[in-house]
C-alpha cells in the first residue's frame, strides 16, 4: 500500500511498489487524463508534475512519488498558469486528435511557471520531449507565446 497525494487529495493505492505512477493513476485511481504513449520516457504523453517539476510518470515508480505533491492534467486548471495554458490551447485550436495534449499542457505549464517569457529556443528545449504525431507543434508554439504575452497570466 502506497499513499499518494494527487491534485491535493491523499489516496491509497494497493499495487506493487514498482508500478509506474502512470498506471496507478490510470488503472487504480481512474485518472485517465494522463496518457500512455511509449512507456520509456520518450514521448511525454504521461507528463505530470511532481512537486511542480514536469516528470514522466511512465518511468516513475509509485514508491518514488509517495510523499510528493502530484499534479495531473485533471488538476492543473486549479493553477493560474495551468488555467491560462488550457484556455490558450482552446482559443488557438491547438488539439487535433488531442491525445498528446495532456502532456503538452503539463510541459508548457511547467515551462511558463518557471520562465514566463520563453524564447523560441526555450520552447524547443522544454517541449522537445513531447511528441505530437498529428503535428500541432506550430500551434503549440503560438499558444505558449499567447500565454507569455498575456499580462498577469504567468505572474
Amino acid at each position, binding site marked *: 500500500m502506497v499513499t499518494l497525494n494527487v491534485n491535493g487529495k491523499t489516496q491509497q493505492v494497493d499495487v506493487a511498489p514498482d508500478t509506474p505512477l502512470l498506471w496507478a493513476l490510470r488503472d487504480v485511481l481512474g485518472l485517465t487524463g494522463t496518457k500512455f504513449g511509449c*512507456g520509456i520516457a520518450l514521448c511525454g504523453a504521461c507528463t505530470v508534475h511532481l512537486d511542480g517539476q514536469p516528470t514522466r510518470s511512465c518511468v516513475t515508480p509509485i514508491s518514488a512519488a509517495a510523499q510528493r505533491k502530484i499534479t495531473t492534467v485533471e488538476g492543473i486548471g486549479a493553477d493560474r498558469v495551468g488555467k491560462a495554458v488550457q484556455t490558450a490551447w482552446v482559443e488557438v485550436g491547438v488539439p487535433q486528435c488531442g491525445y*498528446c495534449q*495532456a502532456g503538452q499542457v503539463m510541459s508548457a505549464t511547467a515551462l511558463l511557471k518557471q520562465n514566463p517569457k520563453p524564447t523560441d529556443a526555450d520552447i524547443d528545449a522544454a517541449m522537445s520531449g513531447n511528441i505530437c504525431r498529428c503535428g*500541432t507543434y506550430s500551434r503549440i508554439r503560438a499558444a505558449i507565446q499567447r500565454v507569455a504575452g498575456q499580462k498577469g497570466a504567468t505572474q
Partner: protein
Amino acid sequence: MSAPHDSMTSAPSDASSDSPLLLANVSRRGFLIGASAFGGLVLAVGFPAALRAADAPKYGRDGMPDGWTDNPLAFVAIGEDGTVTIVCHRSEMGQGVRTGMPMIVADELEADWKRVRIAQAPGDQKRFGNQDTDGSRSTRHFFEPMRRCGAAARTMLETAAATRWNVPVGEVEARNHEVVHRQSGRRLGYGALAKDAAKLPVPPRDTLRLKDPSRFRYIGKGELKLADGPNIVSGKAQYGIDTRLPGMLYAVVARPPVYGGKVAKYDAAEALKVPGVVRVVEIEQSPPPAEFNPLGGVAVVARNTWAAIKGRQALKIEWNDGPNAGYDSTAFKATLEEAARKPGKVVRNDGDVDGAMASAARRVEAEYYIPHLAHATMEPPAATARIVQGKCEAWGCIQSPQAARDRIAKRLGMSADNVKVNVTLLGGGFGRKSKPDFMIEAAVLSKAMSGAPVKVTWTREDDLHNSYYHTVSVEHLEAGLDAGGKPVAWLHRTVAPTIMSTFNPEARNEAPFELGMNAVNVPFAIPNVRVENPEATAHTRIGWFRSVSNIPHAFAVQSFVAELAAAAGRDPKDFLLELIGPARRIDPRTLGDTWNHGEDPEQYPLDTGRMRRVVETAAREAGWGKTLPKGRGQGIAVVYSFVTYVAAVVEVLVNDKGELAIPRVDVAVDCGAQINPDRVRSQLAGACTMGVSLATKEEISFKAGRVEQDNYNAYEIMRTDASPREIRVHLIPGDFNAPLGGVGEPGVPPIAPALCNAIFAATGKRIRRLPIRDQLKA
C-alpha cells in the same frame, strides 16, 4: 466560452442504456423529434440504394457500403428544454469531424451552437450510412446529406409553429433556435416546438429549402472552437485506452513477431506468479491472409496494465515463424530494384515510349526508394469488450465501427444484432485504426474470461512490431528530352507489395486504387507515356497509411520532374507548369485511372487549371525565386490526391555540418469550398509536419522477419525543435454547391518531394532514398 458539449454519449457511463442509446440522455428531459419513431422510420426514408439500378456504376457516397442517409430522425433530437442533440456518425481522430459534421446540421437547422450537444453514433451503418472514416471522405460525402438533415428538421419545426399559430408556413421562419412569425413578431423556441414537430412526417427531400450560402452562420466561417477542446485540455476526453468498466480486467498480448507465425509452445508458470496476473490465455492464430483478424498469440490478463506487462515479460514462448522468417529489408530492396529494372505489367500506355526514347536528344533516369512506415498513432490501439447474456458490447478507437461489429460477431459466432460497438475518440488514426483486429482481441478475451470486461492495450512496441505497414517501394523513372529540354517520353515502373495482399495472398500487382494515386494519373503534357507495374510479394501486413500510395508515387514523380528541370537547365516551377500544360479538364479514365478515388469522373475530372493555380499560389506566396543566402534553397511539388489539389514550397537551410532546418513552408490547397477552414488549416499544417517527419526520419525495417524498431527511439517522429518554424496554409476559395475534395490526407504527399527538391536547390545533393536521416552529412 460556454462548453455545451458533453463527452461522448457512447462512453461507458451510458453503457447500461441499450437502445436507443443516442437519445437516452435527452429523453429524460421529455421531448423530441423522432422519439417514438426512432428505429422505425430511420430505415424507411433517405436510403438511396433502392432508387438506383443495381448494376449502374455507383460513385462517391453511393458507392460506399451502406451508402448514406439524410434522415433527420437518425441524426437530430430536440429536448423540451431546447437542447439540440446532433449525432456524429464518423470517427474523430483529429480531423475535427465531431465539430464539422454537427456544425453543418446546426447551420441548416438554425440551431444556436451553444445549445447543441454532440452524440457519437455506435457502429450501425443501416441507420447512419457509411461510417468508414477513411479516404478523406467524411465532409466530401456527407456535407449534402447533413445539410438536408438540418433543413428537414428545421422545416418540421417551422411547420409545427405555423400549425400552432394557424398561419401559412411561408409566413414563418426559423432563426437562431426559434421560429418567428414575420408579420406578428410572435416567436416560439425549439424546445416548445419539439413535441409537435416530432409528430410530423419527415418532409420529402425535393421539397427542402437549403440555405443560400450567404446566410450560413457556421459553415465556411471557421469561428467555432473545437467541440472536444475543453475536454481534451482538462483530461476528460475519452479515448479507446481510457475505457473503464466495473470489474474490468487488463490485458496485453504477445503476438507472433513474424507475419504468419504462431505459437509453437509456451510456459505461463512464471507469468502467473506476477502479482496481479489473473490468467494467461492463448489467442488462436488466424492464418494469412491477415484481413482484419487478430494475429493470435498469448494474452496475459491482469488486475492492471502494469501487472499484465510484467506478466508478459515473464512468459516463455517459442514461436513457429513460418514462411516469412527470412524477410529482410536490405535484401528486399535489392529484389524490388531488380524488378524495377525489367519490364512489368503495362498499366498505362500512350504513344510510343520506346521510339521516342530512342530518338530523344537526352535521356534521364532515376530510382527512388521509400521504406515501410508505421502510423505510430500517439494512442496505440486499445479496446474493451464484455459479454452479457449473449450480447457483446465493445468500446474502442476505431475508424470502422461496422467492420468491427461484423468481425466480432463472426469471431464469436453471434449475430451482428447482438454486438454493439461504441466509438471513443481516437488518439490518431491515419489508417491503422480502420483495421479492427485489436477490437476482436478484446472480444475474444472477454469470452475467455466468461464475459468479464477486458481491456486490451497495445504497448508502443506492439504497435510498431505488429502494424499494418505502409508498403515499401522502388520507383524507377526514365524520360527522354528533346533538344530544347522538353520531355517527349516518360516511363515509370512502380514496384511495391499491394494492400490487397492483406486480403489475397496471391496479389502481387498494385490495385487500381493504388495505381490511381499518382502512378498512372499523371496529367503531364507528354505525348508518350508508359507506366508499368512489375510484381512484388508481401511478407508482412500491408495497410492504408494516411495518403497511401501517393507517398511513394508522388515522391518519385515530383522529384523526377525537378531532376528533369535541372537536366534541362530550367526553373523547376516554370518547368512543372509547362509539364502540367494548359488548363483543361481531363477524364481520369483517359489517363488509365479507372478508380478516381471512387468519385464520378464526370463530376470530378482532373482539372489542370486548378493544379496550375495551387502551384502559382504557393510559389507567389513563398516568394519563389527570391535570392537566398548560401545553404538555403526552395523546392516545389504539386500533388492531386483525394480529389484535392495541393502544392507546397519548402524552404530549407542546410549548414556546413549537413544539418537541416526548415524555416518555412507554404502550402496552397484547393479542396473546393472549406466547411471549417480552421480545421482545414490545422489538417494541412499537421500533414506538412508529418510529411517532413516521414521524409527525414521514419523507417520500418525487417530482419529475420521481425521489425527492427521497438519504440520512438528507433522509430523517430519529428519533434518540435526540428519542425518547420512557419507553415503558411493558403486556401483557394470554393463554391459550396460544387463537389468537395478531401482534406485529411492530401497534404502529406507533396511535402517529401518539395523538401528534397529544396535540399537539391540548397546543396546540389539529390535525395533518392527516404528517410533522409544523415544523408546530408555524408
